[in-house]
């Protein structure tokens, strides 16, 4: 963000506690001092107005990065984002666009309970006109965020809270972009493909290392972009192994896994050698507050290992 703000005067950040406080997760630490209060704007505790202001600014030539402090509180912005931002280009026959980024920390595993743990990706991913991005590694986060900022259309940029501290990785100082809408094969394998994104990538990698000791070769595809999905990579990997597991923390029904599964059965049916499996969060309304129940909610490497083993022997 710092690089993009230095590169392009039109880029600015806004959100709750992002100024003097530097953001609740310190994503904008030092920005206020460096870029000043006109480009680092502390907002009232009103998500609908954050999204609405960003929408208006974007339509008027600026490139806002609006932070929703926790994705759990993003619901008041539905009208601004889904009802308006997603439709502007379409409704104006392409004469207007909304080059804004909505950043939102999401996901569980942080003992956040019902109001600080939810996965919101499918609500937005269902909507044509939006892009939804969910990086899993620091490298991808930088490259995808820069691409999102430069994109001419609204991007929902979802950052898993647990990855902030849990995951470390090399991030080059130099300028690079990661193209939106491209999945990334994080591990190559022959027997089973696992499609995942966000925090779950790391559980999947751990599971793959475990089953590798049993001789099961797993290919792991980090979707990175949930809308648009990278059909080409999804299909080529599914055809390669013929056995598919989809892992996400979000609940199962009508989720990302359902869409990936549908794409594969529509376009790679004759390459499947087993039913498609999903490992996801359970069908409950929100992350439970009890730590032990939260551990049950969150898919972990053990569940993923079991699913991979079942597919491998099928």
């Amino acid at each position, binding site marked *: 963000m710092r690089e993009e703000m230095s590169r392009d005067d039109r880029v600015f950040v806004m959100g709750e506690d992002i100024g003097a406080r530097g953001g609740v997760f310190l994503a904008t630490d030092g920005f206020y001092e460096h870029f000043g209060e006109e480009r680092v704007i502390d907002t009232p505790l009103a998500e609908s107005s954050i999204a609405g202001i960003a929408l208006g600014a974007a339509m008027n030539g600026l490139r806002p990065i609006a932070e929703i402090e926790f994705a759990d509180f993003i619901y008041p912005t539905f009208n601004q984002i889904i009802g308006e931002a997603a439709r502007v280009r379409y409704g104006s026959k392409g004469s207007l666009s909304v080059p804004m980024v909505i950043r939102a920390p999401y996901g569980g595993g942080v003992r956040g309970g019902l109001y600080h743990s939810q996965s919101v990706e499918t609500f937005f991913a269902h909507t044509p006109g939006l892009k939804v991005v969910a990086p899993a590694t620091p490298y991808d986060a930088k490259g995808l965020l820069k691409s999102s900022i430069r994109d001419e259309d609204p991007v929902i940029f979802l950052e898993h809270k647990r990855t902030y501290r849990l995951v470390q990785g090399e991030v080059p100082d130099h300028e690079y972009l990661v193209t939106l809408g491209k999945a990334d094969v994080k591990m190559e394998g022959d027997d089973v493909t696992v499609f995942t994104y966000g925090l779950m990538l790391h559980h999947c990698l751990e599971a793959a290392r475990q089953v590798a000791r049993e001789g099961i070769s797993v290919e792991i595809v980090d979707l990175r972009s949930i809308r648009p999905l990278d059909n080409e990579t999804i299909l080529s990997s599914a055809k390669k192994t*013929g056995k598919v597991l989809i892992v996400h923390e979000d609940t199962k029904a009508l989720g990302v896994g359902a869409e990936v599964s549908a794409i594969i059965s529509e376009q790679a*049916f*004759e*390459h*499947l*050698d*087993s039913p498609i499996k999903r490992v996801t969060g359970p069908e409950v309304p929100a992350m439970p507050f009890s730590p032990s129940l939260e551990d049950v909610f969150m898919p972990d490497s053990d569940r993923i290992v079991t699913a991979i083993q079942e597919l491998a*022997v*099928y």
Partner: protein
Amino acid sequence: MGFCATNDLYGELVRKVLNMKIELPQVGESVTEGVIGKWLKEVGDRVEKYDPLVEVVTDKVNMEMPSPVSGELTSILVSEGKTVLMGAVIAEIAVDGDDEHATDALKEPIPDTLEPSQADRIGTLLKDVSPVGPTGSGGHISEGPVVQRYSPAVSRLAAEHGIDLSRITGTGMGGRVTRNDVMAVVGSQVESDPTSTGVSETDNVEVVPLTPIRRTIAENMIRSATQIPQAWTMMEVDVTNLVNLREKFRLEFKRTHGVNLTYMPFTLQAVAASLKDHPGVNSSWGNNSIILKHRINIGVAVASDAGLVVPVIHDTDLLDVAGLAVAVDDLARRVRDGKLSLSDVQDSTFTINNTGVFGSVIGKPLINPPEAAIMNTEAVIKRPVVIDDEIVVRSIMNLCLTFDHRVLDGAEAGAFLKSVKSRLESIDSDNIV
């Protein structure tokens, strides 16, 4: 009366509208497709039930398919030379209204696929036939078809590479055939496929596609060579008496029975009697058991233009020499004419291979699965032999026996061969028994 009127109307309706779809019937579970041969009826022809309708060529036999119903042939849907799957609709017959099968059929819609119990109603050529190899199967020992589902990937690969999935042993859950299982078979085929080794028609070779019978022979012989531990033994047989006998009765026999007298019926008789004495040779390996066959059905390998076929003389032990001579002649002629029926190649329990006609004196035949043994009769050759310390000229024929060492040991196999030898050597040169 209203009831009768309804019935009349019903019959009228049947006469007017019933067009029965005629399907290529399933004949033996290992037969999956057939080539449509000559149509024996034309569109518009009157067809009686059981009238031969069309010739069908499978990898096992050629057959004439009888009409399952009486009526008028209204359309031929598969033309001569086309390959179709068993169960495919090949013709339509407008069925006679008073045909009870027809009214049955009208009451219930004809399903696309047939359950075995429905098969006779819709028209099946042969029921309850057991699987056959090109050279006979050796009796009813199959454990019945196992319902197997295949994944889309497996089905597609099998179709692309022409693989019979029922022959693959699955390594997946519950014996399921996995994609890797199919790829392993494809890999082994590629190794042996000349077209995959860079050889093309331009390199002074001709690549001949396999006929169904050639492919089945190949698969059976691979199964024989790779799955059966085979041991081999040979004995010399002094057939001087037999040669003299044949010379003596040759012309008379031809006059009386209308067929040539060869050595084969004598060999068959000797083998059948010896199989009775040594039932272990007339058996099959059954994984956890040995399956002794009560019937003695000897297959006789016959070369044909298409490849080796083994027609079977059922209950060989019940025929005398003349009966056997007639049976052998009949089978050989029908092999040449391509007129073997499925039953002619089924249920053999032992095979005799007369390699002597090619001039061979020693041969090592491969067992015809799932039989336990196979015997070659080699060329009859005059040789100097020592009898009572004197060198004399005798007619000698070698018998070569290959046997399944899981089922038999050298002792029993040797005793069997010795028994055949003794019987042939003790033939009375003055009488045909």
